């Protein structure tokens, strides 16, 4: 295929550029939230995230001058710097909210009563007065300054440590883990045995069973909500972890059996038959030969099921409670969107806590994920 494009450099360039555009389009949304999660709420509301790396000219919140005065030659002076930690560059300043850009950097403003204030470009100020200012209310300064880019991890600390909207993200993270891990492991075992039977055992009704599993593969789980909730209530399970584990197991099984059967049916027949001739029982064949050989398929289903249970919202809403000890990350995030919809620093950090684990799993195990997808779709 290279040969076609290789002859036409213009076309190859077009391919490079369109791919780059496409990738940019796909990455930009996530990048936006990621950048926002490292900015303070002031920064987020005063400029778009795409400006985070450039120096910003913006109006800062008012700062009240404070400090001890020194006396020299009958003049009382308070000196200091308006930028406490981060640097900046003052372009304009003022002393009232009505005219926050009244003076340029370096100008001296007459405040009346023999007092005057000078603010220089680097944020240094000098307030001079002919009388002592010890008992006076000192003036406020409004700065229009360009501040260098600054990032903070405070949002993450806040979100993980302190409870928001009644629930802490750290606890929700644990809850989600509690849901996802058993709900990933248990269906694999059940499905592996069933898949082996469907792939390598002869019995009447096998085609019918396979057809039934293909049918169940597309049944929307919406249909299962109410009857199963009723069932759980009757059994006394109610809204609990046990209930959601069982539900995820049931919902994941068709996909698991389908994937594993497809893979197991493709294993070499000779291996299994020679084991049979040697007198191995089905249980031994399954445990010693089929299960180890099917590892790639088991891994890819495990990734699917883990991503699906971690990211699920609907099943958790229905089968788990909303208390602090049961709320999962997705549910928590939906609540935050409702109650703290404008606080992007909280939303962004919470969202990243919830998507971090799937992203790590995704990038770490992409090979198996792709293999599983292909096994499920391409014949």
């Amino acid at each position: 295929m290279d040969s076609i494009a290789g002859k036409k450099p213009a076309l190859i360039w077009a391919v490079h550029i369109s791919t780059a555009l496409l990738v940019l389009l796909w990455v930009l949304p996530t990048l936006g939230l990621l950048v926002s999660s490292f900015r303070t709420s002031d920064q987020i509301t005063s400029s778009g995230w795409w400006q985070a790396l450039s120096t910003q000219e913006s109006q800062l919140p008012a700062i009240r001058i404070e400090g001890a005065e020194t006396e020299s030659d009958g003049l009382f002076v308070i000196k200091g710097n308006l930028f406490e930690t981060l640097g900046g560059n003052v372009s304009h300043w003022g002393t009232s909210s009505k005219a926050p850009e009244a003076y340029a950097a370096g100008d001296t403003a007459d405040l009346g009563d023999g007092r005057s204030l000078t603010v220089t470009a680097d944020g240094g100020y000098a307030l001079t007065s002919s009388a002592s200012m010890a008992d006076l209310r000192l003036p406020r300064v409004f700065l229009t300054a360009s501040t260098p880019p600054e990032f903070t991890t405070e949002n993450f600390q806040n979100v993980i440590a302190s409870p928001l909207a009644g629930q802490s993200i750290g606890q929700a993270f644990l809850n989600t883990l509690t849901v996802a891990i058993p709900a990933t492991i248990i269906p694999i075992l059940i499905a592996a045995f069933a898949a082996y039977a469907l792939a390598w055992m002869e019995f009447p009704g096998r085609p019918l069973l396979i057809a039934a599993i293909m049918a169940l593969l597309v049944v929307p789980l919406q249909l299962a909500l109410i009857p199963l909730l009723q069932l759980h209530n009757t059994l006394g399970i109610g809204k609990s972890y046990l209930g959601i584990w069982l539900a995820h197991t049931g919902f994941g099984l068709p996909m698991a059996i389908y994937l594993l059967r497809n893979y197991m049916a493709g294993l070499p027949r000779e291996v299994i038959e020679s084991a049979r001739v040697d007198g191995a029982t089905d249980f031994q064949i399954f445990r010693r030969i089929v299960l180890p050989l099917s590892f790639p398929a088991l891994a890819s289903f495990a990734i699917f099921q883990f991503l699906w249970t971690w990211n699920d919202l609907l099943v958790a809403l229905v089968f788990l409670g909303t208390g602090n000890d049961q709320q999962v990350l997705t549910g928590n995030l939906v609540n935050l969107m409702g109650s703290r919809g404008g606080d992007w620093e909280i939303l962004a950090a919470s969202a990243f806590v919830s998507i971090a684990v799937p992203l790590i799993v995704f990038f770490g195990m992409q090979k198996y994920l792709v293999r599983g997808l292909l096994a499920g779709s391409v014949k």
Partner: protein
Amino acid sequence: MEQAFQALVVIVLGVGGCIGYFYLSNLLLDRVLCPARGPNMGRNINRASMIRPWLFLFPAIFALGLYLAYPVVATAWMSLQKDGEFVGLQNYSQMVSEPKFWESMQNNILWLIVVPALSTAFGLLAAQLTDRIRWGNIAKSLIFMPMAISFVGASVIWKLIYDTRPVDQAQIGLLNALWLKFEGGFGSTIGLRVIPALLVAVLILAFAYAAWSIARPLLKAGVKPRPVAMIGRLLGVAILLALIWEIVGWLTGVLSNDLPYGQPQTWLSMPYWNSYFLMIVLVWIQTGFAMVILSAALRGVPEETIEAAILDGANPFQIFFRIKVPQIMPTVVVVWTTITITVLKVFDIVLAMTNGQWETQVLANYMYDKLFRSLDWGVGSASAMVIMAMVTPILVWNVISARREMR
């Protein structure tokens, strides 16, 4: 801590229980029920091998039956009941009398056409582009990444893009920041009228061409196509004509509408278009899936067919549309139906972004509203049955193709 312990116990119990069940039941079968020795050895072995598959299958069949098959029947039955009494089709008639239901249906149909189409198209484009360059694998992995992000997480991500702030404040949503760059001058005319109009016109032509090439075999006299294929083709033509009808409206709109330049827009409460803004989120998630599968299919296209086409003087576009795409058509269909199923179940995105306000309701969220907010289980079950009815064609097709494969 307590719940981590509980989870651990459940893992150990579940795994141990499964293994114990399979091991002990096999042991029981081989040693006690049908021992492979004694006078009835032959009969016992046969019997054991008849029973064993069911030992392997029992837990799966039990779980599938209880958690998927039974609920379908139970929901169907519940949709005919109200407060525990049998009321026939009353729930259904109540449902179809609600305007919100028809809004959901209309939106769902739109979702069903737009999302699979766009995801497959973008996926095909990405697959074709990334297969030809050296850094293609990195590009693929980045486009595939949204697949790992939850629908709720994706909603937060896109809500920031659609964010709106008052006119005198800095816009922090990317879309509004872009929109405010247009001020109604010459650039705006080009960017917001001429180019979109051209794109829409190209789209209309493409749809018309596709409809024509689907319909062509039907119009040919003498050849009798199979009834299934004929229905499929007619359906395809109908969908394409409906799309053309929809889009011709856009064309006139793009050229004549007054655009409110300089006003930040609240994208998610803009009727009609807000549904599209929600669909984009799902397209963003699903494109990677389509790309991965279509890319594998494209690589499976026999090299000889392409070489032959090159020798015959075909250009790259002809090779793609005339040689490659027809050969991967079965995979395209699989991708399309898989995304269709996902779309039918879409719930989280609508719940998180608009909760069905501003005419964005879809069936799955409508059902959730009925079941858990209005606590009207009858109508809720009825709408669940509507979703079931919509997946039934795919279900039947799945079963038929499974049977064909078995033979």
